[in-house]
């Protein structure tokens, strides 16, 4: 043991973060990779599934929405739907998986000391990887359906960033509350379905009027989809409201983020006890 190792350091118990950035990042990577491997373990196609699965899902959706449901007047409706589904799917899948993530890793949480935040973050990381693949496939469709490439496509990272921040914050809240209140899982599964319809995923926001329209416009996910539509698919798509509709969601993201970090940091030391 070196003399440095003999320095007494305060032991403060488990925490959300802490224990060095290098270790946190390594853990994040290794847990995400393991999760990823586990998803495709025992399948014949293996990792190819991560590409094939969105392709097949898109095919189903295309069949349904081009023949059954039509918003014919919406420019490039089919690929808009695709893009919306990819973006919303990232949000709902990540938050859904994150909810039980800490409990699923019970063995590790109950027996080792490590920054607890790594667990939901690893879920986000893996979902981001899937999102990237889905976006590649989606863009292939977008080009295939005759949407002209535009310089605004380069702004896509901004959308992904905003979406990731919001998703991560919600994931943190759910993951930290679930060990204590198992109802969170059920409530969230219902809420996520409700959110799907309360977000302009399968319909354009302009079709909804009145109070409901304003409520949907206030949904923090709405501006993300609206901007994505305008930047990627239809530069002439109308944007609801003005600056206010950018500032309010931005403030919401920030608030949810602060709330998420606060709740997680508060719960982290006790998570092992409630498992």
């Amino acid at each position: 043991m070196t003399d440095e190792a003999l320095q007494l350091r305060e032991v403060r118990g488990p925490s959300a973060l802490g224990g060095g950035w290098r270790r946190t990042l390594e853990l994040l990577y290794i847990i995400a990779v393991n999760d990823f491997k586990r998803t495709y373990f025992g399948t014949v196609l293996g990792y190819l599934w991560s590409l094939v699965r969105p392709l097949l899902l898109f095919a189903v959706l295309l069949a349904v929405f081009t023949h059954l449901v039509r918003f014919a007047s919406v420019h490039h409706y089919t690929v808009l739907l695709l893009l919306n589904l990819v973006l919303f799917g990232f949000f709902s899948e990540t938050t859904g998986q994150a909810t039980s993530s800490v409990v699923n890793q019970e063995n590790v949480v109950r027996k080792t000391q490590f920054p607890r935040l790594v667990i939901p973050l690893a879920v986000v990381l893996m979902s981001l990887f899937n999102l990237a693949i889905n976006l590649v496939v989606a863009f292939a469709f977008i080009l295939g359906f005759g949407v002209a490439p535009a310089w605004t496509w380069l702004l896509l990272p901004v959308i992904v960033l905003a979406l990731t921040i919001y998703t991560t914050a919600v994931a943190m809240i759910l993951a930290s509350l679930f060990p204590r209140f198992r109802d969170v899982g059920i409530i969230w599964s219902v809420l996520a379905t409700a959110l799907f319809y309360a977000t302009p995923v399968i319909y354009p926001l302009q079709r909804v009027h009145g109070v409901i329209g304003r409520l949907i416009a206030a949904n923090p996910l709405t501006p993300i989809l609206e901007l994505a539509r305008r930047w990627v698919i239809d530069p002439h798509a109308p944007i609801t409201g003005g600056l206010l509709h950018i500032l309010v969601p931005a403030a919401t993201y920030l608030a949810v983020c602060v709330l998420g970090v606060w709740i997680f940091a508060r719960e982290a030391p006790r998570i092992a006890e409630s498992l």
Partner: protein
Amino acid sequence: MTEVAQLSRPRRALTSGPVVIEARGVTKTFRIPDQRMDSLRERLGHPLTRVRYRDLRALRSISFDVHRGEFFGIVGRNGSGKSTLLKILASIYRADHGRIRMAGRLAPFIELGVGFNPELTSRENVVLNGVLMGLSRHEARRRLDAVLDFAELREFADLKLKNYSSGMMVRLAFAAMVEADADIMLIDEVLAVGDAAFAQKCLDVFRARRAAGRTIVLVTHDMATVQSFCDRAMLLHDGELRYLGDPEETALRYYRLNFGGHTGAGGGDLPDVNVRLIDAWLEDPAGRRVENVEQGEPIGLNVIFEARHDLISPVFGFHFLTADGVQVFGFNRSLTVAEGEPDVLRAGQRARISGTIENPLLPGRYHVSALISRNHNQGDLALHVLQLLDFVVYGTQPGPGSVAVRADVEASVEGS
């Protein structure tokens, strides 16, 4: 464990070395809801009713130091708070009050594991565990072979852990912990599981690490281990520190606590419900029953117990004490069973413990106490007979203390 506690073993005095674990007033209270309120609805359903909690005081202001290179034992009955203390030391729980400071890298082994994921292969788990313990991914991969070799599980490296037997799982976990090569090892009850070969391997590791000057904190029910390995030991009872110091004394007090708990009012399970003493006697070398033993003559010990209920993995412990209750020596025995046979004494079956014991006792009055525990778990006491046998060693060569030892020591005039 069939390790015989030595008559006297060189106890190392390491308390002058640097402190590597410093605990001051560590307190932990668990709030246990009287009726578990697991769901929001139960809470929301009774917004005006205060949720009633029962406070379980798991640890009450525990203070101690562990010095570098010490083998430090923590003993206590089930529920005494020892595992909670270990979890706080390992930063898995947070103490309510008090302060803990530590020096060096830590490797915990808690609840028979190091935090493996049953859905992953042992290869993936060992690397993940290495990173959890503070190694880089590169280092973690490098030590993978060593871990698999130590656990003797190389051919199962790519098998998911959920397909492992519990024994294999514990072996892998212990190997991962050992190979993390940490400065401080925190170990909870590793000896309670696994086969005899594995237990022997654990003891070998303890011996080697102890010799290498590593600090080991061991939570155990096995007093033989405490007596033969620990430099110091600590007895916890109901979350309080009852004794800290000499391991022999700790073990003795632990046994007394167990016994006291059984006879005390409302002491829960009655020990003699499980096992009944049928007979106990001493024999001389010719095989005759005797009341007393001649100095220097081997002691023939014979005891017969009958199980009232199935006893899984019973351990029979015997302690030889002086008339005033000072332990002289003792040993534990597990059932000798054929390979593949279950280590069980069935209800109605009798166990006979017999053999000869070397007799180092000086003339005087002695007694033998017996302890039977279950599940390889010395805390799970099935029977404690305080006065199993009472006998006199007679002879003409009295001396100081209780035992005579061979001493090849010579006194001579220097320089002649």
